[in-house]
């Protein structure tokens, strides 16, 4: 009941010997993630709490059949780490690094989109399939407090807001199939519409919740997809940042990508386009489960 990540998915952690990587790796493993190997160049042959460490991703793939990679590598090294994973045949890459130069992101995303691989990030807290597995800090130390297993797919441009949306769903009596923090930067591995399509194709996902922000074409692309192909499953969107429309053009308040560069990518316009394409617009977090239940005929 998920997209991308299940409890059997074999995960390698790049940069596993770093401080944050070590903590997050163990938290993920405790949750149920099938972590098969770690990679830190120069540390091949060591282990982290029983997880074998290799010098290259290729070795982790050859030795353990790793198919997903959690990339804990600093911003300026993140491009090469993701490309290494891609070339080694990894098909799900989760890359939390923040403040990655945009020209690096463009090269990485270009390479990813020329394949069938999915890259979540940069600037992401990760992905979680509640009750099965997680990659990244998503859910913190007590994921069960926030994420209940269920049938709502979440895609959010904000990592923190994935938790808030899931929490609101749980309080409203709903659970999550898979939640994806797609990345907060102007350029991300995959677009919001790509995740919407994955949720549409996932038999266990019954409804989709989106969190959007000013800037980037992500929300417009979702609206265009739904208008062209029809609404297959109910979609509810919460779009934040309307207040920015009264600020001078080009002023960024939140994420790097969340600035209003021109006409058409402000929250008001996005809400209008989504609404016209059949998306239900939530007024706030509490409204998300209300809207989903109404759409599913359970209100």
């Amino acid at each position, binding site marked *: 009941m998920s997209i991308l990540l299940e409890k059997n998915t074999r995960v390698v952690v790049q940069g596993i010997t770093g401080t944050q990587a070590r903590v997050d790796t163990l938290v993920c493993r405790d949750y149920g993630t099938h972590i098969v190997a770690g990679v830190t160049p120069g540390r091949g042959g060591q282990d982290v709490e029983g997880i074998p460490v290799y010098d290259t991703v290729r070795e982790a793939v050859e030795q353990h059949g790793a198919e997903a990679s959690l990339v804990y590598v600093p911003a300026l090294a993140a491009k090469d780490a993701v490309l290494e994973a891609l070339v080694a045949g990894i098909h799900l890459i989760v890359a939390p690094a923040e403040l990655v130069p945009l020209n690096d992101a463009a090269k990485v995303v270009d390479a990813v989109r020329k394949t069938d691989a999915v890259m979540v990030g940069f600037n992401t807290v990760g992905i979680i399939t509640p009750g099965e597995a997680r990659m990244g800090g998503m859910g*913190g130390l007590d994921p069960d407090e926030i994420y209940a297993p269920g049938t709502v797919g979440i895609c959010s441009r904000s990592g923190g807001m994935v938790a808030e949306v899931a929490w609101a769903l749980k309080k409203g009596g709903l659970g999550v199939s898979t939640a994806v923090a797609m990345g907060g930067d102007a350029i991300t591995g995959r677009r919001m519409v790509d995740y919407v399509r994955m949720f549409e194709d996932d038999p266990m996902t019954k409804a989709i919740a989106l969190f959007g922000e000013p800037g980037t074409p992500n929300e417009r692309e979702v609206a265009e997809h739904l208008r062209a192909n029809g609404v297959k499953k109910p979609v509810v969107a919460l779009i*934040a940042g*309307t207040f920015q429309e009264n600020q001078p053009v080009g002023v960024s308040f939140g994420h790097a990508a969340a600035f209003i560069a021109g006409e058409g990518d402000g929250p008001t316009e996005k809400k209008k386009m989504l609404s016209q394409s059949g998306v239900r617009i939530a007024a706030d977090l509490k409204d998300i489960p209300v809207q989903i239940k109404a759409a599913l005929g359970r209100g």
Partner: protein
Amino acid sequence: MLPLTEDKAKVWLRRQGFPVPDGVVVVTPGAAAEAAARFGGSAVVKALVPTGRRGISGGVRVVNSPEAAAEAAHSLLGTDVQGHRVDEVYVETRVEIAAEYYLSINLESFPPRLLLSCHGGIDIEQTQATNPDAITVIDLDPTEGLNPWDAVSAWKSAGVNGEILPRLGAVTASLFTAFQTADALMLEINPLCVQTDGKLSLVGAMVGIDDDALGRQASWLADEAKPEWMFAGRNLNERERAVFAANQRYRGGMIRYSELDGDIGLIFNGGGAGLLQHDLILAMGGRPANHSDMNGINQDKIKALAHAVLDNPNIRGLLISANHLQMTRADRKVEPIMQVLAERGIDYAKFPVVIRMFGPREAEAREAAAMVPGVHYLPSGTPLEDACRLIVDLTRTGVTQ
């Protein structure tokens, strides 16, 4: 994005062998006259500010003598162009122009894009709105780069023909390579001129560099990071500058602070949660005194942000709020703010403080908050909406308990 002033942009272009007119930075009318004399009297005097639209705002003067150059410099120095004070002018030799074109490379979403026009000197935003057919937009491949022959095709589709095409193609391809090497986000050559002798000249040049890449760029480029330049057309006040300085001084994380004209101080963590709560507070009738974000757990940065918010004389209440922190320690966010609150002589009977901060080490964060009397640390799981409602109500009534 860090915009470079024209002189820096042209130094950068010249170093890589691009054809750029000779020019010099001066700060007095006398020096402007000397420079113009060196260029044979015929020169262009430009206000040296990091913004576009200088021509439209009267910041560019064409002169025919050293005396006229001095006069132009005198009339520009000390004035305000597009919100920027003119402290320096750029005196440049005048090029004999046969044709003018427009070129820019932009990386704001995927993929990077090349914009071309056979009309030089245009205002690109205005042209996009009123005459989009005059602009040719080409998607660029960030991995493969731009081939000169593909650049030739691009110029042909922009309506340029003839013997200049191979030169235009070569320069355009090289500009994209230079763009990527310098970690630029924006490069505009306007006008890109064909001289009467048939050679190309990059007469107008603007470059914006990615802040996130400054650490790996040459120091002369990185040293251009000035707080005023972060915000187009708006000078930062002292509190905003202090936050910017703290970002540069201390390593790790990134704090943001933008002042507004309301009375509710906001210390947010998490870009998305901050945007949503700001919207909600406005919808509830509250008036934010600022927007902010505290990314990371650098204690000095968080204190600097708290000081900036509290230094604003207009604030009458404070909301400290975040999305669920997931892996980040709540105490490392709350403690430094409580230290700042404790060392200030605020009457908490009249100044409401609401905290919504849940996650690892929340118990320790609550202990730290308890040191400051009168703080409302909301119970775990309280919705974001309720935190906004409480600070709006408390600030409106002035009753804190």
